[in-house]
């Protein structure tokens, strides 16, 4: 199983699409490693700098609604995975992106908008929020200079099994 948790990158916008996460021009790569420097390169958020070295310290993304919409490219979860980001928390996900995350043994956690708003209260100017995942008990906890709090989340039995198996290939191969 992958490791989950660490420093949080807040992406304060809905409908972030997979072209913004990894532009199509990099889809000619056939290794995940080659994607690494291009994470969120075309993300359109005021003040967001894809070249900020601090980006590579992030281990968790917290964002808004319909994250990962658009293309089916699994390069989107891969570019996160290769940058050691194995958790994305949002109020909702696009279907294919969400499935791709679990298929890779990664976590796409949906929380109600109120909970997402509370997580965003930890977004400081120093980007010092840290989030931990208690996978067995379905809870996340966030800690920052604004304090700490925790939230319960729910995962389907299938999603949980994929994460435990390390992904869909492993799961399907042993079963079908």
């Amino acid at each position, binding site marked *: 199983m992958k490791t989950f948790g660490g420093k949080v990158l807040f992406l304060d916008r809905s409908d972030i699409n997979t072209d913004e996460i990894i532009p199509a021009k990099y889809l000619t790569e*056939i290794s995940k490693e080659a994607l690494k420097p291009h994470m969120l390169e075309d993300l359109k958020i005021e003040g967001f700098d894809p070249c900020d070295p601090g980006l590579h310290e992030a281990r968790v993304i917290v964002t808004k609604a319909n994250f990962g919409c658009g293309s089916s490219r699994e390069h989107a979860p891969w570019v996160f995975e290769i940058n050691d980001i194995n958790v994305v928390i949002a109020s909702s996900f696009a279907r294919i992106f969400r499935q791709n995350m679990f298929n890779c043994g990664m976590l796409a956690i949906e929380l109600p908008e109120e909970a997402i708003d509370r997580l965003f209260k930890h977004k400081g100017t120093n980007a010092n929020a840290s989030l931990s995942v208690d996978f067995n008990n379905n809870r996340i906890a966030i800690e920052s200079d604004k304090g700490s709090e925790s939230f319960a989340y729910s995962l389907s039995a299938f999603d949980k099994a994929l994460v435990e198996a390390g992904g869909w290939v492993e799961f399907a191969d042993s079963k079908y």
Partner: protein
Amino acid sequence: MAMTLSEKIFASHLRDEPFPGTKVLSLDVVLCHEITTPIAVNDLVARGKDRVFDPSKIKVVIDHVTPAKDTKTALQGKILRDWSRRQGIRDFFDIGRNGVCHALFPEQGFIRPGYTVIMGDSHTCTHGAFGAFAAGVGTTDLEVGILKGVCAFREPKTIRVNVMGTAPEGVFAKDIILRIIKELTVKGATDCVVEFHGDVVRGLSMEGRMTLCNMAIEAGGTSGVCMPDEVTVDYLWPFIAADYRDKKAALADFRKWWSDEGCEYVKALDIDVSNLAPQVTYGYKPDEVKDAAELAGTAVDQVYIGSCTNGRLEDLRVAASYLKGRKIADTVRGIVSPATPKVFRDADEEGIIRIFMDAGFCVTNPTCGACLGMSNGVLAPGEVCASTTNRNFNGRMGKGGMVHLMSPATAAVTALEGSIADPRKFAKGGR
């Protein structure tokens, strides 16, 4: 119990339900292209599982970057080519026979009503136009599909869209779907199949229906779906004639997939197109849509006609009807990519290719081309493209570029004008 079309397909293809709500379906067709498949192939090789579940059910094309533009894209093509040969996949479409996957595969008769179809491409929803359940998936789902012939889904709910009225002159399937996406929003159909009903849909050709279903994903939909009818039978007849006594028998067989009276819809949307104007996107999301007239005068640098949305013969024919005997503005670069070799050949025989060339368009080979900024027709920062494609995302056709989505008719008159224009204000060409 009354069921929707997709519920019937799920019930008939259910292979396993490992957990409540998780349906593992057996697959009728697994489609592959050179962008998302090579990594799946390499992973299977690395796992010592270089096999396919059934080579006759796997269809392969090189379409996104063709001819190859550099060593990397040449390698992607080579991995697919070598794999297809190695695995005995006979339906492999290489250069000379290749075209945009979602135009080529239906044209080859590979998609039938009631089928389950996956591909590592979000616009796989296009194939629902034949009454199939067709979903875009990532590379891992594709890899398992190739190896085991199965794919897992949470069973989608269904949205019913009823398209009524009479489409006015200058208004086409593209305008209708842009309007529907505006109503549904970019996440309104997430985890849902979008069923298109109504007299307007029944009156559309398969090309028009594919345009509708193609953009279901832009509202978040898993698949777009049309009920298979006489139009579907006529389109598929060359491929199914041996299977049925006559067309009536084929239709009766197809009808079993129709959504039942009284089936459950999560949402219903009625659209009357009688007063619909040509539609154009203005922002970076496909639900940011206005009447073409509201954006009239917006200067464009490039006009692109092609793609899995609008690169079929009917689309080229409509665009050519406005371009005939006219020249595009000299501030505009016009590019047209016929979606398949058959589209190219038929357009050539009808004189459409000549019309495009005389108007000042560059005609490319069949390819996904400029649609996603990874091949040809890339925009420079600050440039604007009027495009018949399906995504206007930030940077989609090149970093810093802006894309306005529209129908082939609106794109054609925009090319003539040099700025976004309303096709209803133009007489068709004819010199």
